[in-house]
């Protein structure tokens, strides 16, 4: 790696407090101007289970949780046993000596048993203090000044009173000093360039919500569903501040139809869900397109099929989003790449939705929606361009207002309900320029055809507003890694690893899926030497889509569908394996998450509380 980095994993059961401990460290790093990527792996259970929060700190931007593990903070025995084997060479294991035992730690890794009771005795030895002790110790190892931890604890516990803050700082100091006595600072410690940069730590979900209000979104409806709930929670707690109507509805069918109703009435409106909820929304997507009503609908994918693995990630809803609703109709499908991209994609999406009066479907996933990473607030544009498309504000003087007028672009200027003189009915049945049904008394085939053509024409023009795909990295690379959506970052890092291994690779990442830049994509693909499509699913849904659009047969697929996101090394290894196998056609590589806890799986699969 070209730059200084350090990765810590916090492991325990739900409720053990790894989130707040991780947050404190994240806060410190962000204040010190260091980048981070936090991946929280959790289960669909409220208490207990196994929560594993991985925090990767980098001097420069980090795009994934990486493949190293420099420290493990184990909050229970299970986490300790499960993750000790994953530590990288030179890594340290931090734990409470009074509660846990560490044997079998691989050579070259160091087990640090903190005498927590002793270290916290002066402060009353509450169980919760264990985390702060370990964090103190960790701070020493990573090599951050202790004052930073003091500030963080101050911020975290300030509300609870000075005494609590003092207590926490006291025990943290205990851990810090203890570690100082028994272990050296990590290699990274001396290399950090600590600055003043104040980063925000945001998830893709939060970025979508904030990006939406920045773009003028005034209506958000939802039904809770992991991993989309983060968007709902942000909206719910900021409804009043931001003047947004936030409606938790009875189901996702209502959610979509309410959002469409609000969009139809003239609000910028949006909703989000995950796969199963999206299935219920599909009928309404065709409705919006037939009404020619703008609306933004987000699918934050999780591992399917069906209820699947609710707290795990996957990119397997592409087919569903492409196939949402019967018939042929215009809509856009966009898959943003990073949290920051999520923020800015919102204005773009609302503009597209309103300019072309059609639904815009965004595809995110658990990995993108819930991982937290550093963003420089200065890079977020809170005043994006808002383009509401062609709007008619009064009755035309030359004849009746035609809501569904046949125009060269297919866009018919719309009037908001309530405007005098431009009355019309929007229907899901086929209709003529005025909106009058043609399905009823006499279905007039020429009118039907004209209306279909009009609507589909919008795709042609909308395409021009979507940036074309392009290659990132060396043009003459020996191999091109193709991805879509949230895998952008991890592929970037894989390419960096490959470069270190002297393999020239580049990246073709897709964001705009519909309308699709068929010509540009084909031209690029024809210039690629070998291609591998990298996807978090079983069938290679995007590869099939791309082939359907361009006839391009990729060299192979690099897939992962065990619920965990890719790690950069896995992709790099896949490329190496592909080269070793002499780049056969129809090659398939399935990256797997090793089972760190092999033999105890049966016993701990469902453990008893």
């Amino acid at each position, binding site marked *: 790696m070209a730059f200084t980095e350090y990765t810590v994993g916090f492991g325990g059961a739900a409720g053990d407090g790894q989130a707040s401990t991780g947050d404190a460290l994240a806060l410190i790093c962000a204040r010190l101007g260091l980048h981070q990527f936090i991946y929280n792996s959790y289960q669909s259970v409220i208490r207990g289970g196994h929560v594993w929060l991985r925090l990767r700190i980098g001097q420069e931007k980090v795009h994934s949780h990486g493949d190293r593990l420099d420290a493990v903070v184990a909050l229970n025995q299970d986490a300790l046993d499960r993750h000790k084997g994953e530590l990288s060479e030179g890594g340290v294991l931090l734990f409470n000596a009074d509660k846990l035992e560490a044997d079998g730690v691989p050579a070259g890794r160091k087990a640090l048993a903190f005498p927590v009771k002793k270290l916290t005795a002066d402060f009353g030895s509450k169980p919760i203090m264990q985390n702060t002790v370990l964090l103190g110790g960790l701070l020493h190892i990573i090599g951050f000044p202790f004052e930073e931890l003091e500030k963080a604890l101050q911020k975290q516990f300030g509300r609870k009173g000075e005494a609590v803050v003092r207590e926490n700082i006291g025990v943290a100091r205990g851990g810090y000093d203890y570690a100082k006595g028994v272990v050296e600072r990590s290699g990274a410690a001396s290399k950090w360039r600590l600055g003043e940069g104040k980063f925000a*730590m945001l998830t893709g979900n*939060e970025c979508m919500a904030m990006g939406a209000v*920045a773009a003028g979104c005034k209506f958000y409806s939802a039904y809770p569903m992991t991993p989309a709930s983060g968007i709902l929670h942000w909206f719910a707690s900021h409804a009043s501040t931001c003047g947004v109507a936030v409606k938790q509805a009875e189901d996702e069918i209502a959610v979509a139809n309410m959002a469409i*109703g609000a969009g139809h009435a003239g609000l910028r409106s949006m909703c989000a869900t995950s796969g199963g909820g999206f299935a219920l929304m599909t009928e309404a997507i065709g409705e919006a397109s037939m009404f020619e009503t703008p609306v933004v609908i987000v699918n934050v994918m999780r591992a399917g099929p069906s209820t699947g693995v609710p707290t795990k990630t996957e990119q397997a809803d592409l087919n569903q989003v492409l196939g949402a609703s019967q018939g042929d109709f215009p809509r856009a499908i966009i898959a943003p790449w990073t949290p920051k991209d999520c923020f800015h994609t919102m204005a773009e999406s609302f503009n597209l939705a309103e300019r072309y009066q059609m639904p815009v479907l965004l595809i995110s996933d658990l990995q993108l929606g819930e991982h937290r990473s550093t963003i420089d607030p200065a890079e977020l544009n809170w005043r994006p361009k808002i383009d509401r498309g062609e709007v008619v504000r009064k009755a035309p003087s030359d004849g009746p207002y035609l809501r569904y007028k046949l125009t060269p672009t297919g866009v018919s200027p719309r009037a908001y309900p*309530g*405007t005098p003189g431009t009355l019309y009915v929007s229907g899901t049945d086929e209709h003529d320029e005025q909106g009058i049904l043609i399905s009823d008394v006499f279905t007039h085939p020429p009118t039907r055809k004209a209306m279909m053509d009009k609507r589909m024409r919008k795709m042609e023009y909308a395409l021009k507003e979507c940036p074309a795909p392009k290659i990132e990295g060396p043009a003459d690379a020996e191999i091109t890694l193709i991805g879509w959506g949230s895998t952008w970052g991890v592929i970037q890092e894989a390419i960096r690893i490959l470069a270190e291994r002297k393999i020239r690779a580049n990246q073709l990442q897709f964001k705009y899926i519909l309308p699709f830049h068929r010509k540009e994509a084909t031209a690029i693909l024809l210039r690629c030497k070998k291609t591998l499509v990298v996807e978090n699913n079983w069938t290679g849904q995007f590869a099939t889509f791309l082939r359907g659009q361009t006839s391009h047969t990729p060299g192979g697929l690099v897939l992962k569908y065990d619920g965990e996101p890719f790690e950069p090394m896995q992709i790099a290894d896949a490329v190496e394996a592909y080269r070793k196998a002499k780049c056969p056609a129809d090659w398939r590589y399935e990256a797997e998450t090793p089972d760190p806890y092999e033999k105890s799986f049966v016993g701990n699969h469902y453990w008893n509380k």
Partner: protein
Amino acid sequence: MTVQTAPVTADTFKGQVDPDWCPGCGDFGVLKSLMGACAELKIAPHDLMVVSGIGCSSNLPGFIHSYGVHSLHGRSVAVASGIKLANQDLNVVITGGDGDGFGIGVGHFIHAMRRNLDVTYIVMDNQVYGLTTGQVSPTSEKGMVTKTSPKGNAEWPVNPIAMALISGATYVARGFSGEPKQLTEILRRGIAHKGFSFIDVFSPCVTYNKQNTYPWFKSNIYNLEEKGHDASKLDAALARSLEWGEKKIPIGVFYETTARRTYQEEDPVFAVGSLVKQPLGVTPELGRKLIAETM
């Protein structure tokens, strides 16, 4: 409610297209009463938004001069909710059938009522699926023979009035297409009412329902008002709602209350007025504040 200064009559609401219902269909009467009620209330057509689902009855928005949305089967209430939340200044009237509202759409119906959204929901209840050519519906009587219940309907019908009463609707009434004067008055009161108004209207399907016909209704209904029903009492209304059978079917207003606030009064976001009239986006200052929260 925006009031137009130009004179508004029932004719003001005459749609561009004549209804294509079967001659004699009950829905003609509902349309006419609705136009009359809107005229009495002097609603400007551009302030009226009529939202429907899919069905014979749901074709109504095409036949009235107003803004209209002809949505999906069963989804009118949800679409209308979005419209009302976006633009409080519109008079939102929802129209549809018994299949649309009590079959596929019953969830939205129930939940909109407990929200007490300020909309008016008119169901043209013909106890059958008309547009799809005569299948059994959620309000078909037990034993009724239809295309899909050749041995007689095995299910008990739902009770829409009782459902509305226990779900929190604040205006609950039943009309009959064959009693236009009363119907117009019921609709007028319903639209004027602040809160969720539900009006179940017996609207005979002359083509597919040979059981619940005009004469059948005429001889079985009675007028609540004439029987001294006190529409301010929920328990009395509930008791009346359970009545059914020979000469025992009440029509009129079952219940009305203004004691409950509407959804838009409950949620502080709507205090500024119609959201469609508010400026878009947030100030960079607020943006920075939102970010700062996370730091």
